[in-house]
């Protein structure tokens, strides 16, 4: 298994529970887990997504990812309604390891409070958080 090297793209926003958000216009965002999160968890073997239409709340768990050994809650970086889940992960959950910011995305959300994004971290701040943890 080859995992991508540690990286935290500059264009994303980060939650301190190791989740990222990619804003798409003013009202939508894509969520996923960071390189650090997938590396800590190990090989992901199961992604239990929310359902389209579910309401998710910032700082609360909205999904689960599991490795062979452990299960982990996924924390929402922002609030909103799930408009799409990454169905491709049902058969290939390892994409969360291999491509955490691309093919390994988890959900698309219509944001209910877009201004919450101001509370998230930039890539530089998130990297600093990891260095200090």
């Amino acid at each position, binding site marked *: 298994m080859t995992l991508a090297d540690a990286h935290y793209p500059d264009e994303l926003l980060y939650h301190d529970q190791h989740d990222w958000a990619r804003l798409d216009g003013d009202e939508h965002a894509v969520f996923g887990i960071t390189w650090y999160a997938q590396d800590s968890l190990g090989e992901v073997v199961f992604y239990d997504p929310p359902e389209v239409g579910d309401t998710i709340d910032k700082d609360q768990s909205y999904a689960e990812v599991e490795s*062979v*050994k452990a299960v982990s809650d996924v924390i929402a970086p922002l609030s909103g309604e799930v408009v799409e889940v990454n169905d491709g992960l049902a058969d290939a959950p390892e994409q969360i390891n291999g491509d955490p910011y691309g093919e390994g995305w988890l959900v698309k959300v219509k944001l209910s409070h877009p201004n919450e994004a101001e509370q998230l971290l930039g890539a530089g701040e998130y990297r600093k958080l990891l260095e200090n943890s």
Partner: protein
Amino acid sequence: MPVLYEGIKEEHSAVRTHAGVFDVSHMGEVEVEGPGALAFLQRVLSNDVAKVELGGAQYSCLCAEDGGVLDDLFAYRLGGDRYLLVTNSANHEADLAWLGRWSRGFDVAVRDVADRYAMLAVQGPHARPIVARTLGIELPARMRVSTARIGGRPALVCGTGYTGEDGVELLIDPEVAPAIWAELLDAGVVPCGLGARDTLRLEACFHLHGNDLSPARNPIEAGLGWCCAEATGFVGAEAVASARREGTAEQLAPFEIEGPGIPRQGNPVLAGGEPAGEVTSGSFSPSLERGIGMAYVRTDLAEPGTALEIDVRGKHRAARIASKPLYRKG
């Protein structure tokens, strides 16, 4: 032993298809020697130790008076009246105290020899030829033990394992263990951690003491009646005989999750929405690519094919009781 070196799935697959090595030096070893060794072991071990020939190996439970399983272990007959027991590390000290207590009145010495051995389990379809060639030794048959020189020191080679694959377990001088480990890796054997050890043994339906076995469970409900010979009069034999005769309220049974979801130790088992048992071991199965586990369930539900639900963190996952082992070669 770390949980993993490179990845649990990769290590698991190496053992199923090639060869992997586990550093299981944490296992305990107890030597039992003396004219009364056989009589003593018949008293404390559940199996019929008299059946073990020189150079033979046998699996047993160590039972309390009420039949509860204190530990499960392999006994190897090294000499006419000399045996080696390999204990689970978490139980080693308690086992020693228990064995010491029951050895009174027998002409036998019980020695803690855990410091004398490092233990490397080399497992997988290619394990035997690689070990034989790399270490230049003859290997014993399955369920046998032989002596050898490994790294220039006396060693024991056991034809046993905990993965459901062929292979050997090497009991070697701790001083030479790092060099032997390195030699095996150089020969292409894949280093494997605790994570793969657990998924491999669970697919093979081998019990893990502390999960599937405990002092609160007897061998009959654990499905280990085959290693209990009550006629030998071992400690706990009466309770085991009674459980065998009268049946038990629950039975340990392997199961597979039918859809998504990975069961974990402690998850409740449900039948028709009602509590029906508890998962004692659960994991993702890399070979079957689905959730698998073992659970104590009501005896009437323990038949292969029975549909159940596992409450995995509040989600009811459809499951079916399977037959042993969960993974079968080919």
